[in-house]
């Protein structure tokens, strides 16, 4: 198993580490048994993610995917961000070992949950696709 240079770069110097105190939304996914936990904070203004931060417990891939997703979504509109898939994360990192693909999924889930949290807090009407994705993630957490 080998990590790409980009993964190692993000692991060694991750971007946007930390909390956002007055976050518009927070998404937390993963669990200790699997060895990966991610918490993603977003600050939204006029439907744009003006700030994104993360805290992650996990392997190098978990930290790198968290770091890179903050880079990819920061300054972008929610509508655009919601179209992102884990493939975008993997491509941006120059690939991930097959056994670490789940880390990229986890980071997308953390983002999804953060946006879901934002919609709930704002009392906004949740798009159907977001609701479905949230329900799948919530269901997985129960397993």
């Amino acid at each position, binding site marked *: 198993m080998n990590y790409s240079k980009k993964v*190692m770069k993000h692991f060694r110097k*991750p971007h946007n*580490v930390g909390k956002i105190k007055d976050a518009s939304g927070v998404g937390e996914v993963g669990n*200790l048994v*699997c060895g990966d936990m991610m918490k993603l904070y977003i600050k939204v203004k006029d439907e744009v993610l003006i700030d994104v931060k993360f805290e992650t*417990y996990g*392997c*190098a891939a978990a930290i790198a995917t968290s770091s890179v997703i903050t880079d990819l979504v920061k300054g972008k509109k929610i509508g655009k961000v919601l179209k992102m898939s884990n493939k975008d994360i993997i491509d941006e990192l120059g690939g991930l070992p097959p*056994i670490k693909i789940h880390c990229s999924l986890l980071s997308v889930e953390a983002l999804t949950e953060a946006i879901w949290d934002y919609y709930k807090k704002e009392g906004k009407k949740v798009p159907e696709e977001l609701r479905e994705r949230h329900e799948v993630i919530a269901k997985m957490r129960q397993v």
Partner: protein
Amino acid sequence: MKKRHIYLDYAATCPVDPRVVKAMQPYFFAKAGNNMSLHSDGQRANEAIEEARKKIVKAIGGKNGKLIFTGSATESNNLAIFGLAAVNKEKKQIIVSAIEHDCVLNSAKSLEKAGYKLDFLEVDEKGRVKLEQLAKMIGKKTLMVSVMQANNEIGTIQDITKIGEICKKAGAYFHSDAAQSFGREPIDVEKMGVDLLTLSSHKIYGPKGVAGLWIRQGVEVKPIIYGGGQEGGLRSGTMNTAAIVGWGLAGEIAIKEMKRENKRLLNLREKLIEGILKNISGIKLNGDRNKRLTNNVNISFGGIEGESLLLELDNHGVMVSTGSACSSASLAPSHVLMAMGAGAERAHGSIRFSLGRWTKEEDINYLLKILPKAVARLREVSVL
């Protein structure tokens, strides 16, 4: 500044001692005969192999048995388990400790699929097998018990002699995997009551690609590899003369230097443990503080996943390994730490530092200097 390189993964594998490399050299070219050949070159190879065999047998007090050269400790463990099962068809229970190496666990599980009753012997929080449980489990139907002398992850040393007594009383074969302990801890197969013993070369500064299974006289085992009938038919395949010669010398050196080397390593081990306990919070030493290999330090760092710390230390030029299998083929946390009841966070956050022949005090000092920073860096990123 030259980047540091500090190897602290001797339990994974060791560099080959230059004295061993030198002893092996002639057998690649000048003395390349096949030991099965009748001509002088073949005889010369045969003599070299037998001389090495004598050295290893002597090192374990194994005159009442034979040593079979194999290609790896994994193969030795497979031969012990499948080999015994193929001969003794009427006994259908196998007992292995929950913290055995995967090659023992997976061989035993394969027999379970074929209809055997497989029982796992539990360990306590320090990784010591529960002897009273073994006494209850074992019976007339028990084919074999397999318990390693020292664990590869946490270094805990088992009371092999006691286990041997229990097995003997019940009439079950006793196999012990000594891949981690041979050359590091004294072994006497008579005192220990071992019927089959797995030995390794590359963990004691010998070459990879050679290992052994010692089998007590009167214990019948069927081969798992068939061919030209080398090793009394128990392990066919051309003998790896150079590697065998190398292992023979490596074993001889390890036994000769064991006492002095263990004293040296113990000092370094304790310095490392003390230093970590003193300077880093939220950590836990895994395994038994005293009944452990002199070269093993296994620590769980709270709030950190082991692989991250491994890579962070690698960045500082320090090579270690994680107990959690996250860095290898599976994502499951270390089965050893889970069996000890450590819980997922401790199992995922464990790092094994294993010291060896070329570990110096300044290496430990350097590690103790960079480790707190590495841990703090990753804890800053962590959500825990």
